């Protein structure tokens, strides 16, 4: 197995990695530690809200779902067996409550929730087509068939740790916002919330293959959408008149 060359062990912002282990956390909660509870409410609620929002139609319903899920976490805490991480377990509670709420809203659940397999199944798995337009490669029959015809140009305007301009953030946000819901759920849980592939499969009820198909298509689409902006220096806003 190749080591993940980047971006996969990140755990931005949430109570992972450097935080206390789940055993310690559960013990603190069981002991009634207000601060411990406030910390995980603040750290985990953003991804819980996003997850809920995939199932329900409005922000206010999503917020209700998340509140109810937190109450469910408290009610179930003494039965938490530690088979998964506490935050993964909490997200599963969100998904379950949100699905019920979505049924009440008479809205279809947006993506494959277990059992369905492969492109063409239910959910919004992309078809088997390429993630990069074939027109960017030399066609069959050419001496360089399959090689880049229009290769991507590096993004000089995107240094590693640059604080992005408001405009750049907006470009990325829009690119993510218009993705099909299943792709959006996966790319945000993976790349924004820092969940690993196994956790995302667990919470969304996806097979590992389907999870990667959704992530692959999502990242390729976002990359293609932002490409013209970052190739032209929109990030810093300095190069355009």
């Amino acid at each position, binding site marked *: 197995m190749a080591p993940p060359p980047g971006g996969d062990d990140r755990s931005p912002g949430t109570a992972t990695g450097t935080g206390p282990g789940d055993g310690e956390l559960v013990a603190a909660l069981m002991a009634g530690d207000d601060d411990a509870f406030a910390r995980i409410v603040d750290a985990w609620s953003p991804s819980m809200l996003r997850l809920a929002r995939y199932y329900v139609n409005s922000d206010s319903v999503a917020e209700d779902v998340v*509140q109810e899920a937190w109450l469910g976490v408290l009610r179930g805490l003494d039965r938490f067996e530690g088979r998964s991480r506490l935050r993964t377990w909490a997200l599963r509670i969100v998904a379950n409550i949100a699905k019920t709420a979505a049924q009440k809203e008479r809205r279809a659940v947006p993506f494959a929730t277990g059992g369905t397999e492969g492109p063409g199944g239910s959910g919004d798995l992309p078809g088997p087509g390429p993630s990069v337009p074939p027109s960017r490669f030399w066609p069959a029959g050419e001496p360089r068939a399959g*090689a880049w015809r229009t290769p991507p140009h590096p993004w000089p305007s*995107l240094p590693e740790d640059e604080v992005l301009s408001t405009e750049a953030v907006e470009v990325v946000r829009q690119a993510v916002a218009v993705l099909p819901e299943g792709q959006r759920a996966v790319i945000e849980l993976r790349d924004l919330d820092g969940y690993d592939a196994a956790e995302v499969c667990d919470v969304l009820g996806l097979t590992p293959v389907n999870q990667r198909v959704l992530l692959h298509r999502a990242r390729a689409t976002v990359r293609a959408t932002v490409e013209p902006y970052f190739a032209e220096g929109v990030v810093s806003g300095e190069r355009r008149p």
Partner: protein
Amino acid sequence: MRTWWRSRRKGGPARSRKERSGPQSRPLSCQELVELVTDYLDGALDAETVARFDEHIAGCDGCATYVEQIRQTARLVGKLDERHLSAPARSRLLEAFRDWKRTTQ
């Protein structure tokens, strides 16, 4: 995960016997590589395909740039703002926690 490109090749030009005998060592094309990038970054490729992938990007600026831009894309998404619980909802939850504490202790 290699099956996809094997199946893609069915529709392609006929291969000589020699070529068919060693599909594993056949260099990846750029067009094939871009479809493997997520599996590559997730460590989901077998060692042999990883070797072909690494060999390709070592000699191909276009694909090296593409892989780097997929990494950059993941980082960009990671910079999007979080949506937070409203202050009243947060207060209600902290209150619920104190109630829960009273009833369980």
